[in-house]
């Protein structure tokens, strides 16, 4: 299996960690972002239970407010 990718970049060593841990490892704030696993946004309330699996595509979208 290929490693998981984050925002299009292959990332090693993420298998089995939770989304919450992933966010922390990326040095991101725990708020103001949406994390999509394989194209589906993981609700914030599930970050500590949903885990990254081998081959997953993770996308992190930062909320913006400009209009």
């Amino acid at each position, binding site marked *: 299996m290929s490693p998981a990718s984050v925002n299009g970049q292959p990332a090693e060593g993420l298998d089995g960690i939770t989304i919450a841990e992933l966010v922390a490892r990326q040095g991101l*704030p725990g708020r*103001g*972002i*949406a994390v999509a696993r394989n194209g*589906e*946004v993981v609700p914030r309330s599930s970050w500590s239970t949903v885990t990254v699996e081998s081959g997953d595509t993770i996308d992190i979208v*930062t909320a913006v*407010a*400009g209009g």
Partner: protein
Amino acid sequence: MPTFREMLAQAKSAIREVDPATAEVEAAGPNAIMLDVREPDEYQQGSIPGAVHLPRGNLEISIESRIPDKGAHVLVYCAGGVRSAFAAKTLQDLGYSDVTSVIGGFNRWKDEGRPWSTPKSLTTEQRNRYQRHLLLPEVGEAGQLKLLDSKVLLLGAGGLGSPAALYLAAAGVGTIGIIDMDVVDASNLQRQILHNTERIGERKVDSAKKTLTAMNPDVNVVTYDVRLGADNVLDIIDGYDVIVDGTDNFPTRYLVNDASVLKRIPVVHGSIFRFEGAVTVFNPYLGPCYRCMIPEPPPAELAPSCSEAGVLGVLPGIVGSIQAIETIKILLDLGDTLQGRLLSYDALEQSFRTFKVHQDPNCPTCGPNAGEIVIAEYDELCMPHVAAAPA
């Protein structure tokens, strides 16, 4: 060569005719259809409710699409009963087996006090203006009339509000509300195409109204030159069919989310930053809300505004136009909206991506266990307000 009188007598001898009283009874029967063959201007001044309108000049061309059932009991009327007699004969020749002409036509029907109404229909000018919509079966006259009857509220007459408002006005959305408390500044004109150089210093809502009514006089532009806040948001959004969110800060976006969920008004959300934009549709309780997707805004130091970080001027043109499309799709119940999907646009990559967004069962605003929604001002943290415990 027969004369007109002879032709009429010939037609009448070949068809069945009934008086309006009989026609009214028969029209209520099974498989009955009233067919109005008068000209559009006559029809617009009054017609029998529920009648199919097809001017006699287009009868042969269009009847099979308008009344496909050749066994239907078709009651044809015109103004006085002459054109309908000829039309009835034509229908028989086309294979319609149960056709009747109404003696005395609409004039006698009306004189006898039978029900009639002024049908909602497009004027000649509107027919011309919206011709390209009328050609789309998915819009058509019914859809265009629905747009003209619709009310859309635009939050902000800025980057996103400008293209959204222009296209919604052009499309014939009948009522467009615009809320904005700013005045036009020269630095707006790089992207806010509702305004222009002459309007610098003018209130944005006034400038917007001028541009939109010049674009389409059908549109009633309602302006709100106020700051959207907890004290006025529920009153302002009340009665609108769709809200287009083009505001420029997180506290207002969360306020709008809570208020729209409370009032159950769909929101077409758009946001822009530098070279990136996002669009989605929040349809209260039917799909996720803003808080299901992003429960809280990013820390202020990570969320600079466009006035601090810049924005490519064309970007809101793309994002605001997609918001206008989604708005029309919601109003006309067309296609698949972005409800439950976040569309993310990157102008530098020139790429669109979509992410599925689900309702969060733990959403503090719209989740099944969410408490009563409290509308109150947000600080920069935008944390949901908790309803006071009952005493």
